[in-house]
């Protein structure tokens, strides 16, 4: 448990990282470094997006699966590491 905290702190201290959210398979945030309203917003929206992305990948090839999702926008980058039951979302501003 302490290792989880330590790892989160290490990621948070990386250059440009704005926030980290861990969401479970139902879209409920488990752990977050952002404020409540942003967390809920990110959790809900990204959960839907990951579901869509995963189903897209599997529809094209049923034996394939989604391993990583990166959304690069003008202002920042959202990185999602999905799993069967959870996903880890990190928001980074790469120009920092």
């Amino acid at each position, binding site marked *: 448990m302490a290792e989880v905290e330590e790892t989160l702190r290490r990621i948070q201290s990386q250059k440009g990282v704005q926030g980290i959210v861990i969401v479970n398979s139902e879209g409920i945030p488990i752990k977050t470094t952002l404020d409540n309203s942003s967390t*809920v917003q990110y959790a809900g929206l990204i959960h839907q997006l990951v579901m869509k992305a995963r189903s897209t990948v599997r529809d094209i090839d049923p034996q394939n699966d989604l391993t990583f999702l990166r959304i690069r926008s003008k202002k920042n980058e959202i990185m999602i590491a999905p799993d069967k039951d959870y996903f880890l979302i990190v928001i980074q501003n790469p120009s920092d």
Partner: protein
Amino acid sequence: MFIFIIICVCRRGAVRLGMSKLTQVDFVPREMVSYSKETQTPTEAMTQADQKDTPKELTEEEKLQVLHSEEFLSFFERGSRIVERVLAEQVDVCFDYSGRDLEDKEGDLQAGAKLVVNRQFADERWTKNRVVTCLDWSPQYPELLVASYNNNEDAPHEPDGVALVWNMKYKKGTPEYIFHCQSEVMSAGFAKFHPNLVVGGTYSGQIVLWDNRSNKRTPVQRTPLSAAAHTHPVYCVNVVGTQNANNLISISTDGKMCSWSLDMLSQPQDSLELVFKQSKAVAVTSMAFPLADVNNFVVGSEDGSVYTACRHGSKAGITEVFEGHHGPVTGLSCHSAGGPVDFSHLFISSSFDWTVKLWSTKSTRPLYSFEDCCDYVYDAMWSPTHPALFACVDLSGRLDLWNLNNDTEVPTASVSVEGSPALNRVRWSHSGKEIATGDSEGQVRVYDVGEQICVPKADEWTRFVRTLAEINENRDEAEELANA
């Protein structure tokens, strides 16, 4: 309900059909009983809809349970490893070398890139609860910055006056040198021709000298607390002159100006009372020497006026008064960017009246008044390299950069410090690419200024000549209108 009865009579020949008599019958309408085809037990579809409307939350215990579970830990280990690798890669795949990207970002993003905080300096023991009173960059080592602080009311046993030398070059967050003294330090600076000395002017009127060669944190030399020296707070200290002939000039708020030799601080070499019209002593809050001038200087006072004065000669003392501000003058800066055209007659002053005014020593009325701030402006300084650029800071935590060649109505770049502490001092580094600001919470922040703002192009000087000519014209027109 009406029941129509049509009698169809099968008769040969013409059939005559007619309406039969209506018989009213009172049957209650038949109820159509329908059974709902939906299931009564909740299914997947229904709960999904619910969740969209009201996101369920897990209790703290549930969250803790999840965090301890085996599958979460294995997911997290894998996920965090990948994410850390991705974060470490600094490649921006979308970078456009043609610069078309940057044109779009002229708005917000440009403003962000114009002034970025590079370092923030504070120390738990020495700067907490103290206010930054003065900042100065070292002329010999461009990475050194001295900041002076006043007293910490919460810690009466700690020394009242502190001056810390911060180093920009290394990543460590602790000061290079810690100096302190018994009275609050109101102004401080590196001695220009003595790289090891830091001069401080204090609230008690004493001028102190610290030396980084000695191991002491207390001053190595102090001026006497006597009527020959200063007895009022010293807000301005400055070393002027050349390598061989230099003096430390200090002015206190009772209008007394003393010049000292750094070798001997036991008595001033020269002293002068700055009085206006033989009677009114000038309460000096700020002082500035024009570039390469050791005799003439400008001072700003609490009564809102700026005065020019000279040190030597038959007319030593206050020469002229420049009236224009409606509140005490907080900062003065003389134009110092050397270039093809000489603008050393220009200076700017900041004041409690929310404005920064541009003056020329050739005229006692202000050339222009910059009125964009909405609060006391605490300090202003010309850029040492760009002829039309200056910075100012105010009470609401805003740092503004004005480029007069671009726009004289609004600042070219502006940044607000989060938490809105009052910014007390602003100092450009000697390279003109960095700005240091000190605030009321003891924090010193160093900002990197974007290249497109701080680096002057070759024609900046000629453009500034034109800008000045326009400003002068506008001022003359405004006066004619006012007088007419």
